[in-house]
């Protein structure tokens, strides 16, 4: 299973030269201003990619209130074609990770992941391949 077509990928990094002022306000109302690196978003377009879910992690957590949660963390990777992926799964054009926002135990996990990826900005033109 894979997604194919044209897509774009946006990488977010922190600038090494530019900073901006961020105001941090605590719940008690106290605040301070700090200098933080400017975040640089770099968008790259790709043509005719072969995109697959490369890695999935199911993580269980519990918070202070005792609420238990299931987190589905995934990695996707785009290749020039299926043969490239088959030869070396690390030979990708780009990769990205994220978290499946909702999870339905009664449905196939991979299908849910692929369907979710197709809704994300930059990947809406991909189709099942």
């Amino acid at each position, binding site marked *: 299973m894979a997604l194919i077509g044209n897509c774009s990928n946006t990488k977010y990094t922190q600038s090494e030269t530019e900073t901006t002022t961020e105001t941090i306000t605590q719940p008690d109302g106290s605040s301070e201003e700090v200098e933080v*690196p400017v975040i640089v*978003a770099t968008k790259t377009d790709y043509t005719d990619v072969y995109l697959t879910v490369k890695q999935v992690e199911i993580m269980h*957590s519990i*918070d202070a209130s005792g609420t238990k*949660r299931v987190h589905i*963390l995934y990695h996707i990777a785009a290749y020039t074609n299926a043969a490239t992926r088959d030869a070396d799964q690390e030979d990708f054009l780009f990769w*990205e990770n*994220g978290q499946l926002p909702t999870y339905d135990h009664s449905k196939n996990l991979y299908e849910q992941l692929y369907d979710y990826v197709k809704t994300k900005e930059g990947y809406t033109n991909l189709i099942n391949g």
Partner: protein
Amino acid sequence: MAVTGSGEIKLIGDVNNEINGNTTDTNVSLTTLSTGAGKDAPHGLTEFYGYVDAVAPSMGSNSTHTIGETYFYSVSSVSSDGGGTITERGFYFGTSTNRASNTKYTVSGTTGSMSRANTGLSAGTTYYWWAYATNSAGTTYTSMYTQATNSPSASGLFSNMSTWGSWSPASGSAPSNCASASLTWGASMTAGGYWKTNSTTVTASWWLTSQTGNTCNTPSYGAMYGTTVSIYGNWTWGPSGSGGCGYRIESWAASGYATYHIYRSTICC
């Protein structure tokens, strides 16, 4: 709307009359009227009657990017200023599901995309964040976005386990209500990479998943989570009436690709 004998509509004066309830200021312009009302001046009749107050900003969708063990980026956007100037925008971010209980981070800019690098986070921990924007009409918040950081890699776990963890205190009395208890990390644990935090007195949580016996030296296994403190479940500390029950952490172990630490504890009564 009054019409003069020549057919000229006394627009300016009549508009003023309708608004101010008097007819003395016959040369008041639409611009003057609207400015006096604290509005941006309309310069034509259509603008005047079509004028609407600003509404609260509209927000775009949230997403996270580049998720690591100790960081991830929150990305959102202000899709519309609602007709008013955006005076503040940013994120609420923290470990509480109550937005107001978390820290607010105000970032620069007005409309369009905005992002923030959330750094210094704990591995394998759930965080919650909201984006917001404010104009003269109010503040709009996005819905809560839940994001977990990556769990620590197996290699990281084992490297940090070169010195087996110890607790300080390593044992203690059981809470009378069996509802909660806390331990404080010993120095050897705060030095560990995964468990390193901003605080030197971080408390840890444990959750007994398979407690089967309450006799002394019966090992049980639990899962270590994050930085909060609780014992969950209906679990009693030893035989009723025995008194003096307590806990003692014997050793640590890390599961290969597990998302949390596994430890063994011994209950002595």
